[in-house]
């Protein structure tokens, strides 16, 4: 029941986003590329995969889940490295370097604290050393 509502919501959200983007795409039809469309379908598919996978996450682990997804969404390092490291004007590269610092902080603290929390969850019998 919960899962169904969640999927509906997620589908609606992804569809909205895709809709907005494709509207913009139509406006700028001249440079409409196949790549943009495939990115949009990747978004819709990934949202469904995400909803399916995360709907099954144990409720015990919601706090570590949040710190883990936090670290995962710091994948924006990829963008930050490209901007900080490419041959762009320095002011732009500075923005990239600050973004890189912020993402790296999330990666390090996110993974470390998730690991720390997950290790604490023990079954009966396992708990007492």
């Amino acid at each position, binding site marked *: 029941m919960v899962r169904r509502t969640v999927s509906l919501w997620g589908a609606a959200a992804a569809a909205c986003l895709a809709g907005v983007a494709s509207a913009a795409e139509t406006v700028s039809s001249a440079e409409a590329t196949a790549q943009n469309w495939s990115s949009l379908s990747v978004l819709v598919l990934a949202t469904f995969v995400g909803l399916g996978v995360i709907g099954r996450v144990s409720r015990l682990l919601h706090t570590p889940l949040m710190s883990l997804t936090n670290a995962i969404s710091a994948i924006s390092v990829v963008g930050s490295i490209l901007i900080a490291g490419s041959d762009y004007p320095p002011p732009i590269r500075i923005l990239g370097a600050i973004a890189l610092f912020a993402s*790296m902080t999330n990666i390090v603290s996110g993974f470390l604290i998730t690991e720390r929390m997950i290790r604490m969850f023990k079954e009966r019998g396992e708990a007492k050393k």
Partner: protein
Amino acid sequence: MMHALVEIAYLAAIVLFILALYWMNDPKSARRSVSAGVAAMALAMAATWSRPEVVHHLWIIIALVGGVVVGVPLSRVALTAVPQRTALSHAFGGLAAGLVGTAKYYMWFGEDPAELTGFRMTAIVVETLLGFLTLTGSLMAAGKLHGVSWIPQRPVIYPMQNATNLGLLLLALAIGVFLIVNPTGSAVAFPMLIALSLAFGVLLIIPIGGADMPTVISILNAYAGLSAVAMGFVLDSRLLVVAGALDGASGLILSIIMCRAMNRSFTNVLFGGFGQVQAPTAAGAEDRHYKEETIEGAAQSLEMARLVIIVPGYGMAVAHAQHRVAELYDQLTKRGTTVKFVIHPVAGRMPGHMNVLLAEAEIPYDDIVEMDDMNPDMAQVDVALIIGANDVVNPAAKEQKGCPIYGMPIIEAHRAKTVFAIKRGKSTGFAGIENDLYFRDETFMLFGDAKDVVGELTKQLSVDAAAAA
């Protein structure tokens, strides 16, 4: 060749990210999750760094080292401080997204405005808007959670609040549309978009109070994910789109679970100003009074009980009482008493907050049960011990139409044979309503700091055990 290798690394990273989340379905397999996530991230970073267009390395190294220096201490905070750490990292995520959007805009603006297509511009506007509003919104939330003195804890309400917020958002969207249609039309449009997003983030969180934080943190989590998706469109990177969508889906699911657990909608949490709701005074409220119980009396009831449930709430986190609670749990289970912890989805200040605290105190997760699994068997419970929880056990949510929390699912502790409620003072809970549970015939109050009261209960139990032996 190089290009293909980079793409293969990105593909592997996508698979590993999905596996990392999939393994979170059970605490045992979850131990693999972090390794998978770290491997994915390392692959993605190494692949990106090796791309030919990355020619400057010094700043990258400095930023990475800085991230490690700040990140390591942030991962060592006390577990009671995890909600504010989480909010802070959402802020960092938002900052990164906002800055990358800004950098890309000005890069194309300066070098090749024709590159600012409608599609890219839409993505940049969405990324910047969400990124910067997540930044200030999360900083506000972190400040509130941490109890920073100059950020008011209680919801701040002023006249025309929703109209102001909505107006601001519409203005930001209008500027966004202007930029999409005419990317280089005005030099002030983009800075204005940033300023409005920053302001909107602050104003959005100011009216929200403590107990709504689990929902708000989840929503901000979803925003951070969506801004990463938008960044994926800006940079034309599928990896970013997928990782962002996973994060967004997680935030969305958690928000929905939190909202359902409070019987409220998103809009109600964001625009409701919940803390200001005044409860209608129940008839005969004047002659209601608490019954107090002594530690000795409570210990005696616990000794005679066969099935005890413990309902922890934010009060347990505030008092850092989880280790004392674990001692009480040990003392009771040693006697052969069955002890279960019943957790309300919104207990604490973020999703799953109580579970982590109990795990820290080495309470095995077999004895942690969810509200829906415990409620049907509540009549068999001999003693329900409420530790710092309030609204989530208030029977008014079931019985009093018109009460602000009416309809919210609760842990039906009032159906247990005896209830002991540990409470710091006689104040009302977050919702500002009297808790009917405290005035019931079967309820006895234990006033005091949760840590002290639980400690004394445990001591009394062990004294009694020694006397019996």
